[in-house]
């Protein structure tokens, strides 16, 4: 099973929920797709097994062959190329590695070379694999790193995908191949507003989904009221708890030492699996 953990708003507790789900499952892997700010391994502190660079293709120009015909500059829809005199200039930040310039060059003056944009770390924590995507600083798109992280999914396990915040392309990339989405929502006006955006996203992507309310002050809150009205399942509600917040700040996994929390996460896992099975029928 591939389980995507989403939120819309940042800081609602995606990583908290994801890490504890993995820690409470018999046979689960963790995939950190929040590649701009990956944090899951700060909790697992896994034993590093492997580091895989993530590369994208960038055009490289052969000055001898280029006849300054301008064809590639015209064809690039991202305006990533400019011709200054007889020199080709590439704006790497806006290049999408689409391959159009290489295709249109009649002189065969363009070849593609690899450029590293990030790294994927694979670690071991008990029998779980901890896979972390890290975007290099200064790079703008995390999508190739996310795609590389998800290539390491193991179908026979529970794969927990910790998604980035927001509702843009990186979230879609992280969620697209998931079987089920768990939305972690915070009952504040900001949290509610962004929750509705991801709810929409799960619907557009046609994914079964349910909600966990985090940092609540009561069982009856604006998220639970909305979910009840719209027939959305709330599988669990965690209250704000200073002790948990402090443990979490130190990178501790609460289900490792708090049996009550462990029980709650085990039954949350059961609810998720049951709800997913039901959605398949």
């Amino acid at each position: 099973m591939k389980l995507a953990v989403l939120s819309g708003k940042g800081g609602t507790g995606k990583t908290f929920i994801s890490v504890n789900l993995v820690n409470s499952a018999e046979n689960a892997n963790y995939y950190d797709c929040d590649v701009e700010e990956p944090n899951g391994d700060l909790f697992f502190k896994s034993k590093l097994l492997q580091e895989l660079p993530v590369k994208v293709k960038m055009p490289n120009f052969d000055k001898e062959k280029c006849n300054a015909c301008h064809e590639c500059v015209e064809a690039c829809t991202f305006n990533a190329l400019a011709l200054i005199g007889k020199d080709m200039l590439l704006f790497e930040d806006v290049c999408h590695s689409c391959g159009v310039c290489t295709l249109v060059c009649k002189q065969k003056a363009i070849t593609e070379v690899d450029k590293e944009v990030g790294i994927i770390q694979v670690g071991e924590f008990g029998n779980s694999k901890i896979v972390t995507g890290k975007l290099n600083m200064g790079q703008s798109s995390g999508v190739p790193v996310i795609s590389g992280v998800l290539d390491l999914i193991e179908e026979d396990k529970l794969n927990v995908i910790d998604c980035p915040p927001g509702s843009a392309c990186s979230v879609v990339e992280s969620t697209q191949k998931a079987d089920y989405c768990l939305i972690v929502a915070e009952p504040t006006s900001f949290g509610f507003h962004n929750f509705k955006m991801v709810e929409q996203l799960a619907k557009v992507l046609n994914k079964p989904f349910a909600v966990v309310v985090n940092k609540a002050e009561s069982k009856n809150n604006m998220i639970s009221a909305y979910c009840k009205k719209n027939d959305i399942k709330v599988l669990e509600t965690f209250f704000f708890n200073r002790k948990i917040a402090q443990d979490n700040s130190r990178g501790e996994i609460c289900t490792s030492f708090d049996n009550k929390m462990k029980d709650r996460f085990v039954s949350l896992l059961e609810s998720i699996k049951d709800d997913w099975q039901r959605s398949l029928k």
Partner: protein
Amino acid sequence: MKKILILSGKGGTGKTTVAASLIEYLNSKTIADCDVDAPNLHLILKVKDPKEKDFIGSQKAFIDVDKCISCGECAEKCRFDAIHPFEGSYKVDEISCEGCSLCSLVCPVSAVSFYDDKSGTLQKYTGTYDFSTACLKLGRGNSGKLVSEVKRNMIIAETEEYAVLDGSPGIGCPVIASISGVDWVLLVAEPTLSGFSDLKRIVTTAKAFELKMGLCVNKADINMEITNEIIDYCKDEGVYYLGLIPYDKTVLKALKSSKLIIDIPCEAGNALRNVFKEFKQVLENEK
């Protein structure tokens, strides 16, 4: 006129709460929300009825099934895995398509055309503020381009002293687009291992732009040890340390009643005022 951008790296540290109060404290009328894929500033400022404009971020490919001979060349060559077999022909997935036009170049029968894709809505609130923001269409890329457009839509009056821009979490394209051209970054840090790790990534990213940075630690008492490490880190990195804000449930209450935290006499509100006082002093001293 100084442009001040609020950033944090990690999400949920309190950027928008700090931004809304800073706008009031500095009496700033020219403002923007650059967090285009999860905008929230409008919720707390009680602004209404923005003027809206479609934002065309790119074009998307469309395959004419009557012309398509189902050779599959486009699907095979597409770098974004955006074209898939569909009902005996091929179909473009509008979310994955980046509009590069490679498919139309390899199509032997010219079955591919392009259409303008609305990737978001630009919004402009007027009245109390000149407030520029936008809402990215679900799942769209181009958020960096949209952020640049949000900034272009800000009308910077010469008489105004400060413009405040609320940023987005992360270090990627919307953040990079929001940083360029601002004078100051105000960082809202959170004393957790995650928050500190993310803070280092945003500081390193922002440093390339050679701008000035100030920092406050929010929810500081959750972990004083990390809070102290963050303060030391500021000194090492040349970031102005402006003060601490304690964890205070009044912040949640303020949010619920759409009030600004600096308008409520409470621990967090008072601490934030002190942070702003310090910040304003630093801003005035550099004149």
